[in-house]
């Protein structure tokens, strides 16, 4: 089982959360704006503490309120693409990409596939919206994560770049057989990346 999740968390007046289990490969998270998709991803990444419940990814318990398990975010080995790029403004694109990497082994390959090889020596603030998004995807992949959490990773990308990025993600999913949770509003994207595992919040 990839994701085995049952959590809830009170934010302001509303309670967000979800309970689902999903099989190997990727799972798509679908739901209206404000329903709590980002919150759920943050809980799985370890950045938002659930009020109750448990989180288990690929058989590894990451959080369990009852058993007092709460793995620190840096030990969860998640590859997270945030809804906003969150690039480090004081590091070059290259050093952003390598921040979580063990070595520069696959930098060139991933940079080429995401069409950001020409941007490596630039500063984040000079990137266009789509360029920043691709760097954020690259950074999460280069970390060699155990699983991926992608919050609308392909928004603000044009057709070609979207296709390229989607192929990179698919390769990671298929070659490395990584569990993957993807938030998207695009049915076509959902279909292709999630197959039949679609969770509606």
């Amino acid at each position, binding site marked *: 089982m990839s994701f085995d999740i049952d959590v809830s968390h009170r934010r302001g007046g509303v309670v967000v959360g979800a309970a689902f289990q999903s099989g190997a490969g990727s799972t798509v998270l679908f739901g209206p704006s404000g329903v709590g998709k980002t919150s759920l991803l943050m809980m799985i990444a*370890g950045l938002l503490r659930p009020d109750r419940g448990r989180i288990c990814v690929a058989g590894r318990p990451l959080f369990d309120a009852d058993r007092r398990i709460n793995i*620190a975010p*840096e030990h969860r080995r*998640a590859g997270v693409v945030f809804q906003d790029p969150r690039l*480090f403004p004081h590091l070059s694109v290259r050093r952003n990409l390598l921040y979580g990497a063990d070595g520069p082994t696959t930098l060139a390959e991933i940079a080429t596939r995401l069409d950001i090889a020409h941007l490596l020596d630039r500063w984040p603030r000079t990137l266009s919206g789509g360029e920043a998004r691709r760097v954020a995807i690259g*950074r*999460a992949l280069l970390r060699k994560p155990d699983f991926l959490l992608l919050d609308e990773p392909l928004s603000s990308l044009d057709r070609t770049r979207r296709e390229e990025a989607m192929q990179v993600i698919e390769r990671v999913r298929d070659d490395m057989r990584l569990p993957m949770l993807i938030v998207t509003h695009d049915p076509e994207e959902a279909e292709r990346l999630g197959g039949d595992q679609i969770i509606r919040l």
Partner: protein
Amino acid sequence: MTDELQAIVRLSLLIGGVATIGTLPIAFALAWLLARGRFPGKILLDGIVHLPLVVPPVVTGWLLLLAFAPTGPLGNLLERWFGVSILFRWTGAAVAAAIMALPLMVRAIRLSIEGVDQRLEQAARTLGAGPWRTFATITLPLALPGILAAAMLGFARSLGEFGATITFVSNVPGETQTLPLAIYAALQRPGGEAMVWKLAAISIMLSLVALIVSELLGRRQGRRLHVL
């Protein structure tokens, strides 16, 4: 510049430099606690840190004297454990300068830590960086302009420190007589104005150099962070 003047300048730089560099980590730790910590008595700590700013320097010097005198609690300890005394020594002058500079440095660093976007720190954590690496590679560099400003402020304040120094470690030429103390002595003599001007010009120049250096460093750092 005469030998005597050179010695005064060297001493001032030594004391200012040691005070600034020595205080920086302490100031940073305090600023961090005040910016990020949540603990009871936080406002009290904040208040204590600010004391050297409000209490007149002579009183601070006097309190230091009480504490570090051979019979005082700290002076007693230093004497027994290390067999040293900082009274009338340049080390004492550096302690006085450091204490006076501390509140300024803490404020500057605290403001810049509060300005660091914590979402970037979160991103670093998901990339495998523990709290320490996150701190060293994200928080610290992003707060760097403020830290530079703090160092510069602290250094300038140390160069100008007078009241606490003279009350605590007196005016010993070659040991505790910094530029301000030399200026004060000259100001006490009728007709000492020429000397005052000369010494004041030197201390102004020193701090302008420190200022320009910190400004240029800060700019280089700032260029990366800010949208032009």
